[in-house]
């Protein structure tokens, strides 16, 4: 699974999933902590719709962690103050970069969580839909 | 959720930028070098320009003195000292001679500074031409072209109206024959101390995002006309009611009980020093 999709599932989904995947790796491999989870900033680069140019919207507080498994460095970055999750994400990232065998078995779990997230989102959308102004024309 | 303590508050990247700007400022005396002023844990206008310079300069071996309007114990000076001390652990002093770094608002100490000291002045309004030209893009061009007739005209108009120039503090100076510069709101009395100063003088305006400098042994002339020469504030015939000093900048006090006006040294540490030498142990001084 590609990183963009996987990190979204792990960050938006139940953090227990990230914990479970990272624990599995920590259990089997030595994980070196290169940078303990720490706070920092990410500057948001944004496109505006008037002239289609780029500008900086502002910064977002993030928690970042870096670990190394073998020769492979893994990075965990998540908005907000979420030290445990950042550490877990770093381990998961390193495991994927290293192509560890455990990662092959993760797809089903991630996909199940993704389905749960999609359900939640659809309900959310339906609720918002109720605030939509209906302009139905009266026809005989 | 705690942040790592950082020596002298600023991160090293911020210090580098301030240092680059300071080096340029020294190389181009009197020119206001723009810099990306950082947000400090102190309000803009309360000395953040000076504080950023101090943080970019300070090292473990420094001894810091901070004064506000001449007083070491002014609440603003105390507040700045507290911040620098808390982030560096360096000693502070009230004795001008002991300090290696002196950050000041609106005064240059009475004791002549030496080549081993750096004076940092806090600047609220760094643009000397702003009084008659509101646009930054225009004042920048006027400086580029050495077009200072507006500054002269302002003084000339004062003479026409009042028979003399009526500038208070922050009387503009000409640096090394090239740039007209705001010396920061020091009284006119202090302007001559900048001329051929032994110490390097750095000026920082945090809100207006400018750093400028007067290197040592640099000519500083207060703008004036030949038939209306520049004059500092006049304290002739007056002396400090505590230490008896004359020829220093004095604060004026109205004494309720006697209905008299009395004077005392504005530079409180200079006064305390004199008193100590005169044998007074307990020094009392009014501060705000």
């Amino acid at each position, binding site marked *: 699974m590609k990183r963009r999709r996987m990190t979204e599932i792990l960050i938006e989904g139940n953090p227990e999933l990230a914990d479970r995947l990272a624990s599995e790796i920590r259990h089997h491999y030595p994980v070196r902590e290169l940078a303990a989870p720490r706070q920092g900033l990410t500057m948001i680069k944004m496109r505006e719709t008037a002239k289609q140019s*780029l500008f900086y919207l502002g910064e977002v507080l993030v928690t970042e962690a870096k670990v190394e498994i073998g020769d492979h460095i893994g990075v965990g970055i998540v*908005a907000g103050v979420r030290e445990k999750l950042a550490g877990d994400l770093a381990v998961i990232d390193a495991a994927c970069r290293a192509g560890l065998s455990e990662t092959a078995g993760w797809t089903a779990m991630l996909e199940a969580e993704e389905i749960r997230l999609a359900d939640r989102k659809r309900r959310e959308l*339906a609720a918002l839909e109720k605030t939509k102004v209906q302009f139905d024309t009266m026809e005989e | 959720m705690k942040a790592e303590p950082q020596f002298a508050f600023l991160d090293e990247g911020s210090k580098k930028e301030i240092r680059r700007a300071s080096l340029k400022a020294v190389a181009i005396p009197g020119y206001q070098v723009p810099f990306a002023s950082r947000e400090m844990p102190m309000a803009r206008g309360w000395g953040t320009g000076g504080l950023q310079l101090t943080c970019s300069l300070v090292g473990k071996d420094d001894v810091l003195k901070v004064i506000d309007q001449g007083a070491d114990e002014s609440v603003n000076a105390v507040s700045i000292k507290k911040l620098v001390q808390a982030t560096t652990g360096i000693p502070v002093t009230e004795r001008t001679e002991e300090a290696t770094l002196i950050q000041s608002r609106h005064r240059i100490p009475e004791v002549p500074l030496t080549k081993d000291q750096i004076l940092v002045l806090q600047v609220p309004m760094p643009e000397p031409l702003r009084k008659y030209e509101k646009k930054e893009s225009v004042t920048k061009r006027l400086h580029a072209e050495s077009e200072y007739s507006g500054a002269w005209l302002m003084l000339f108009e004062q003479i026409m109206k009042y028979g003399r120039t009526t500038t208070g503090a922050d009387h503009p100076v000409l640096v090394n024959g090239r740039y007209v510069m705001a010396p920061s709101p020091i009284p006119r009395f202090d302007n001559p101390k900048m001329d051929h100063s032994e110490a390097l003088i750095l000026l920082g305006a945090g809100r207006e995002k400018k750093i400028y400098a007067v290197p040592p042994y640099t000519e500083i002339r207060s703008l004036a006309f030949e038939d209306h020469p520049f004059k500092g504030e006049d304290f002739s015939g007056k002396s400090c009611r505590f230490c008896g000093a004359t020829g220093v900048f004095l604060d004026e006090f109205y004494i309720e009980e006697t209905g008299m006006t009395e004077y005392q040294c504005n530079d409180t540490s200079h006064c305390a020093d004199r008193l100590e030498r005169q044998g007074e142990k307990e020094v009392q001084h009014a501060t705000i």
Partner: protein
Amino acid sequence: MGYVAVKGGTEAIEASIDRLKYERLKGGEQVEVSAILSSMRLLIDQVMSEASLYSPELAALAIKQAEGSMEEAVFLLRAHRSTLPRLYYSETVEPERMAVERRISASFKDIPGGQLLGATHDYTHRLIDFSLLEEQEEERQQWLQQYEGELSALEDAAGDGTYPKVVEYLRNEGLFETFEPDNTEPDDVTKNVFQFPASRSERLQILTRGQTGAVTALGYASLRGYGQVHPTVGEVRVGYLPITVPAHGGEDGDDSYYIGSVRATEVESFVPMPTKGPDGKQELRFEIGYGICYGQNETKAIAMSILDQCLEHPESDAPSHDEEFVLLHVDTVESTGFISHLKMPHYVTFQSKLDSVRNTRKGRDGHES
């Protein structure tokens, strides 16, 4: 006039800080940061927007520390920001990726995708609700359960939460100029010195972090006549922008890190502007003013869109079109700092002025009489 010992300043400061703490605590009850976080959404939004730092947790903490003072809370976040390393830059956020919670257009009765009211105070009558005085936890839980119960009974909605932009619909009709995506790296006013004339990216960055009141006042001044922009709101949308960070050595967007999302309010204002047609005749064309800010703060985003459009037309001599006037006066930390510095002692400068004033009264010839 009393005498104060030389150590007076230090002691007074300590006592003053104690007094401040006393003011915060003396009422007996304290609001927890978690309560601020869950109940002061719009206050947090405004603090984050003016601080230019998105962190609801830190904003809530700052609000508590600042006893609810907007300017102090923003100041705390700004100063804290100076102590944190900037670790990453995001990939370009494309605004149409916003997961929309609310979108309305004033330009059309109906818009493709529909007018979505979402959560807004706009249609509440501004009558003080005294029932909140007696609101009980049990009641609140009951209401929540019932509301969420109703939601789960709803049929699933179609779509993914994104909507087409009203402006794109009009661009397709040729009423607006179309622009190719301009990927010039933006300038950053927090890292580099900005000079006049400012770049478009610098203008937008300064406006989006401007003080809500200041941006609103200047936008309003333009509407009233101290400017020449009176727009129609093309679209206001509120929602979440997904943020991604490129991976080192990553190949494409799929390789990047998703890090979370930020809520923002985005506005496109439509302004008719005179232009020359192909045959040299004067005609009108719409231009767009752009506004955006962190959180839900529609007034600020709309006012920003007015000022953006004003600053695109410096040829007008109205103050809201003067970029130095607008950009140098909307930052809260700068304006409140300089206003508040007037509280500092100025007796040296006053003494100096006193000397000048007295001298002018001594005689007009420049000599003491």
